[in-house]
Each structure stands twice: as structure tokens, then as C-alpha cells.
């Protein structure tokens, strides 16, 4: 991300085309979801949310047990499990594997986890061609950008953008028709699928009792990546575990509907190990890399560990009025929207991302739509309190803290509060709404008042506060 968060946000807010694209795309996703969870369609939606929350809580609270079970099952089915503390260890493993197998080409299906660790940037300089096969991700790979939204990664690109990217990077004649653009991508990627040595994927779920990787998708690129090449490597955060295959009856009903409004995505793959002896096709080698990368740190806080329940549906993004204005690239990390605002400061620390939990109006839409009932608004509030404490330790919020201390003191002394209210009315201009802009004294223009006025007017302050009106009413014998 270039520039400070604020410059990027400002640029996004000032781009009407981008604003319209974000708004329309997220609006569509919200509508689709609403239809899919309608009581006529899915009468037990709320019950399923509760069950999903219970299952995730149980799994996370007993994570070591399920991690070990998962590994044992994968191995029992002829696969291998690797453990990686960070992105470099993932890359090291893949590079070593590629070297041993003399692999040159990797095809990859969509995985936020691999974005998180910049996997391609670690592999490509070492001579390993790594091709994104999800259409949106492929477009972005060619453009050199990162995803804009979890389920709609290229929502900020027009067909003209795509045409230009394809013609420039693939050397094909300029084509602006999405149907034809898709055919171009299909042909190019098909060659890659069939020539690839290694297929890589993420995991929507890891199933502990089966040693299985579950992938949901609409295009077929995950199936291709996990069927055609000889070797399959799945990378997944340790929090992706669910206890049993049977629990998919709960999670699969929530994921598609919350993400795109689909009862089920076109393909759901349940992959447990390399091809069995009597099976005809499928990979011969199966590796699952379990990634920590800071997740074990989040586990330590009993309140905030629910951030790890996330099943990456993207619903909180689509419903967040802030996301809908500033878009995915305004967030400092690959995870954007409310879930990004909650986990980024925990992963990256307060210096890097302390502003993020404050960039929210706390409207609560995110918590309302989260399929696994993560209390996102509550977590934002907790993070705000923690961040202020941390800032206080470094004296970074000295003035603001002092201001609130003073404010709290005033609020405990009603007569002082009343007096200050009267003074404010006298000192600040009580003119008509628009006049505030001109008549605001210089010293006030830089602070909160100036910030308010930059966007909207203020009404004239009333002559008498309510309590004065009340007293007059009493005197006049009205009550």
C-alpha cells in the first residue's frame, strides 16, 4: 500500500467510478445473501449460526487436540503434514520440494492465506513460475495488484482495464468483451493446468476426523489445480480446522449463502490424501502445510480468540458502510473490512495498525451478518480500549486522554457542565448553519470542530439549554 492510510482513503473517496464499483458490487452481494438466508429458503439460519459458533469455539479451545488428529488422519491416508511458523518456512518447503521433484510450474487456486504470506513473491524470484488460476486473481497477478475483496477480488477493474491488462501482458489482441476475455483466460490457464508440476491451494476447512482439505469455488480452477498436477500442496492457517466431516452440514450451508448468496458454490471438493491405489486420477503426492504466522498469539486472549472463528465469507466487508466507501486497498493488510480491522492490529501491532479499529462508526452490521457470530463490534471496542492503554504507556495520546479526563470531571460536576454549556453558546458563533465555516476562530478550526465543519454544517446553538427551559417551565407551574 502506497502512502499513508489517509491518502489512499482520500484517493478512493474522490474517485467516483471506483466508489460506484465498490458500492454496486457490495450491494449485489448483500442482496444475494439476503435472498439466500430468507426464512423461506433457510428457516434455520439463526440456529445454524449458533451451532457454527459453538463448533468453532470448541475447536479453537481444543486446537492442539484437533491439529494432532488432523495430522494423524492425513498420514493414515498417505499424505504428509508440514508445520510452518511463518511464510518463509512455507516458501522454504515448497522450494525444497520443487527442487527435489524438479518442478518448474505451479498452478494455484485462490488462497487468502498465501496472500497473507506473499507466497508468490517468495517463489517467483527463485525461478518457480506460480500462476494464479482464479480468474479475478489471475487478472490481478497480471496487473501486479492485491485482491480488493475476499470473494470479488477484481471488483475495482472494468472490462477495459481487463482488456488492457490481457493485451499488454499476454500479447493478445485487445478484447473488451467479458465473455471473450474469459475464453482467453480459460485457454491460457488450461495449458498451465495440464503442464503444471505442482498444484497449490488454500483450504476453506480442514476436517480433523478425515484429514481432509475442503475447497469451495465456482470456476473449477481449484478442482483443476488439485486434480491435474502430480503433486498437491495445500496451505492453511491452523484455525481452519473443524472437528468432523459431518459438521460440514452446518458450515457449508452458511459459507456460500453468506459469501455470494449461493446455497452451495458450484464445486465443493473434499480431498483426503493422494489418489488411492485403485483410483484412476488425482495427485500422487499430498502435502498440507499448517501455518501459524501469529495465530497462536491470538489464541491467548479468551475474548479475542473468537477472531479465529472466521470462515472468510466476506459478508462483513460487503455490509460495512466504511468498507463500501474506502474499498479493500485502503486497509493495510490483505484482510480488509471489519475482520481485517480486528485481526490486523493483533497480528501486526499497534504502531502499524492502531488507527484501524477507530475507523468504524460501530454500526454493528458486521456482527449481525457474521455466520459464525464473531462479536466484531465488541472486539473493535475492546481493541480501542487496549490501544489507548498502550498509547498512554508511550504518552502518544497525551492530549486526547487529558481532554477526556477533563471531560469526565466536568460530567461529574453538573453545575460546571451547565456553566461550560452556557459559555460555549456565548463564545462560538450562533449563526445560521453555513456561517460556521467562516466564523470559526482559528484555534478551533484545527481540532474536532474544524473536522466536523469540513464535511457538514452545525445548527446554531440554542439560547437556552433544556435544563434552563425545564426550570422556567417549573416556575411557570407547568409540572
Amino acid at each position, binding site marked *: 500500500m502506497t502512502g499513508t492510510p489517509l491518502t489512499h482513503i482520500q484517493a478512493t473517496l474522490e474517485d467516483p467510478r471506483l466508489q460506484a464499483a465498490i458500492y454496486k458490487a457490495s450491494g449485489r452481494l448483500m442482496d444475494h445473501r439476503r435472498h439466500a438466508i430468507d426464512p423461506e429458503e433457510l428457516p434455520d439460519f439463526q440456529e445454524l449460526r449458533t451451532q457454527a459458533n459453538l463448533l468453532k469455539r470448541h475447536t479453537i479451545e481444543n486446537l492442539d487436540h484437533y491439529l494432532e488428529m488432523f495430522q494423524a488422519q492425513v498420514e493414515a491416508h498417505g499424505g504428509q503434514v508440514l508445520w510452518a511458523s511463518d511464510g518463509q518456512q512455507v516458501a522454504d518447503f515448497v522450494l525444497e520440494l520443487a527442487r527435489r521433484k524438479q518442478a518448474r510450474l505451479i498452478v494455484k487456486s485462490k488462497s487468502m492465506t498465501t496472500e497473507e504470506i506473499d507466497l508468490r513473491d517468495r517463489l517467483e524470484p527463485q525461478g518457480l513460475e506460480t500462476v494464479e488460476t482464479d480468474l479475478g486473481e489471475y487478472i490481478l497477478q497480471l496487473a501486479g495488484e492485491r485482491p480488493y475483496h475476499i470473494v470479488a477480488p477484481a471488483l475495482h477493474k472494468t472490462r477495459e482495464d481487463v482488456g488492457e491488462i490481457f493485451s499488454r501482458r499476454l500479447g493478445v489482441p485487445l478484447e473488451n468483451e467479458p465473455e471473450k476475455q474469459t475464453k482467453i483466460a480459460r485457454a491460457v490457464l488450461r495449458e498451465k493446468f495440464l503442464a503444471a508440476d505442482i498444484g497449490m491451494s488454500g483450504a476453506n476447512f480442514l476436517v480433523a476426523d478425515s484429514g481432509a482439505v475442503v475447497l469451495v469455488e465456482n470456476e473449477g480452477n481449484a478442482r483443476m489445480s488439485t486434480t491435474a498436477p502430480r503433486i498437491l500442496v495445500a496451505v492453511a492457517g491452523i484455525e481452519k480446522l473443524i472437528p468432523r466431516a459431518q459438521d460440514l452440514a452446518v458450515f457449508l450451508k452458511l459459507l456460500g449463502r453468506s459469501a455470494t448468496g449461493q446455497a452451495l458454490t458450484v464445486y465443493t471438493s473434499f480431498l483426503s490424501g493422494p489418489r488411492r491405489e485403485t483410483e484412476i486420477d488425482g495427485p500422487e503426492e499430498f502435502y498440507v502445510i499448517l501455518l501459524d504466522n501469529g495465530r497462536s498469539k491470538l489464541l491467548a486472549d479468551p475474548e479475542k480468540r473468537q477472531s479465529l472463528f472466521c470462515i472468510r465469507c466476506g459478508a462483513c466487508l460487503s455490509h460495512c458502510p466504511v468498507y463500501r466507501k*474506502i474499498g479493500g486497498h485502503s486497509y493495510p493488510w490483505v484482510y480488509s473490512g471489519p475482520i481485517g480491522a480486528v485481526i490486523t492490529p493483533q497480528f501486526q501491532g499497534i504502531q502499524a495498525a492502531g488507527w484501524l479499529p477507530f475507523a468504524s462508526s460501530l454500526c454493528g452490521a458486521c456482527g449481525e451478518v457474521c455466520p459464525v457470530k464473531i462479536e466484531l463490534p465488541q472486539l473493535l471496542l475492546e481493541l480501542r480500549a487496549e490501544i489507548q492503554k498502550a498509547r498512554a504507556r508511550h504518552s502518544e495520546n497525551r492530549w486526547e486522554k487529558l481532554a477526556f479526563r477533563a471531560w469526565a470531571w466536568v460530567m461529574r460536576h453538573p453545575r460546571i457542565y451547565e456553566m461550560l454549556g452556557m459559555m460555549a453558546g456565548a463564545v462560538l458563533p450562533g449563526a445560521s448553519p453555513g456561517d460556521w465555516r467562516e466564523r470559526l476562530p482559528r484555534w478551533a478550526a484545527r481540532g474536532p470542530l474544524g*473536522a466536523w465543519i469540513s464535511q457538514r454544517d452545525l*445548527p446554531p446553538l440554542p439560547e437556552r439549554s433544556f435544563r434552563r427551559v425545564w426550570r422556567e417551565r417549573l416556575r411557570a407551574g407547568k409540572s
Partner: protein
Amino acid sequence: MPRVSLFVTCIIDQVFPQVGLAMCQVLERIGYTVDFPEAQTCCGQPAFNTGYREEARQVARHFLKVFRDAEHIVVPSGSCTAMIVHHYPGLFANEPRWLEETGRLTPRLWEFSKFLLEVARVEDVGARYDGVVTFHDSCHGLRELGIKEGPRRLLGNVRGLTLREMEPAEECCGFGGTFAVKFPEISGGMGRAKIEAIRSTGAGAVVGIDSSCLLHIGGMLSRAGLDVRTLHLAEVLAQQ
């Protein structure tokens, strides 16, 4: 005659006293005696939302003291009500005495429209308002207190009033407390989306249950030069 105590909230006290007055008029009209504990100030939400919990607690303790003996407490704000009902218990989790005070007070605390419908059991307050209005669903009221149908039922009984829903109705106006001044560009952007939705209804007024939202929406409408007024629900119901 049954008694209610008003917690008018700092914003209505200082910026929109007419809302407090309207609330009194409506409550008296339906047969309540209204009192106003003068030591009241604020519920503590601004400090709490900004992450200053200790300061919020100080103000909250003052609130609990002031309203300790009130029979019913009526509040013309969803966000203040939600602050007290939903967040005070967490704030005082480690202070048993104040936790108990909170527990004793919250069952007696009501947001204004909920008080009318669920305690006073009144849906028609004999109001008259000639005009087309639209309604803004304030986030805290909507999502934390379930306030959606209630105000619409009350407005439905106001003679002469036509209600036109805005699309989308449930999207945040962009106020969000200190968010409005910490991230003014985003807040303004959200506000502009909201007033566009309001403008599209052709209504002459937007009605809501939270004056903080209305302050922000009103400011946006004025800056955009749109001739739409903001009215608190109490103000509409007070009209005859």
C-alpha cells in the same frame, strides 16, 4: 399519576432542547408526571467508544447515582440507552457494587418509543403532522435494541403524515461518535450516501430516534443545500 424521569442526554440538553420539551409534552399528554433530575449530565458513551474506559466509568457512576431512585427512566436516544443497558455491565464487571446498581437500574430504563409502546402501551398519542417524512433507523437502536417497527407504528397513527421508506433504510449515517471527527472524510462520504437516499424519497423531513444521527444528517443536508428538515420522533408526536 405515574411518574417518569427524563434522561434527556447531553446532546439534546445543549443542542436540541426542543426535543426534550417535545418528549415532556407527549408524556404528559398520555398521563405521566415528568421529572428531570437536574444533576444529570451524560451516559459516558463518548469516552467508552474512544477507548477510555476508566473515564467512562467515572461518568457512568455519576449517572447511576443520579437515577438510582427513579421509577421509570425515559431516554430519547437509542445509542445512550444501548450504552447503559449493554455496556455498563461490562464496564463494571470487576466492581460488584456498581454491577448491582446497574442491574437494578436497567430494567427501569427505556428508550422513548419503546416506553410508549411497551410500558405506556400507547400507539396513538393524538398527534397531527401534515407532510411526507422518511425514517432513519439509527444503528444502535436497530441492532442493539431491536427498534424498527415501533416508531413506524407510532408514526402510522399520526394524522396527516405520510411515511416513505428510504432505500437503503438500515445503512449507517456515518456519525459514529468521535469517528465523525477522527475520520471526517469517510463520515462525510457515508453521510452523503444517506442524504442521497433521503433526497430520493422526496420527503420534506427525516425522522429518527437518535439526535446524534440527526445532528450529522442535518449538517449534511444543510451543506448540500437540500431543503429537508430533521425531526426527532418526539417532535413529530408532540405536534397537534
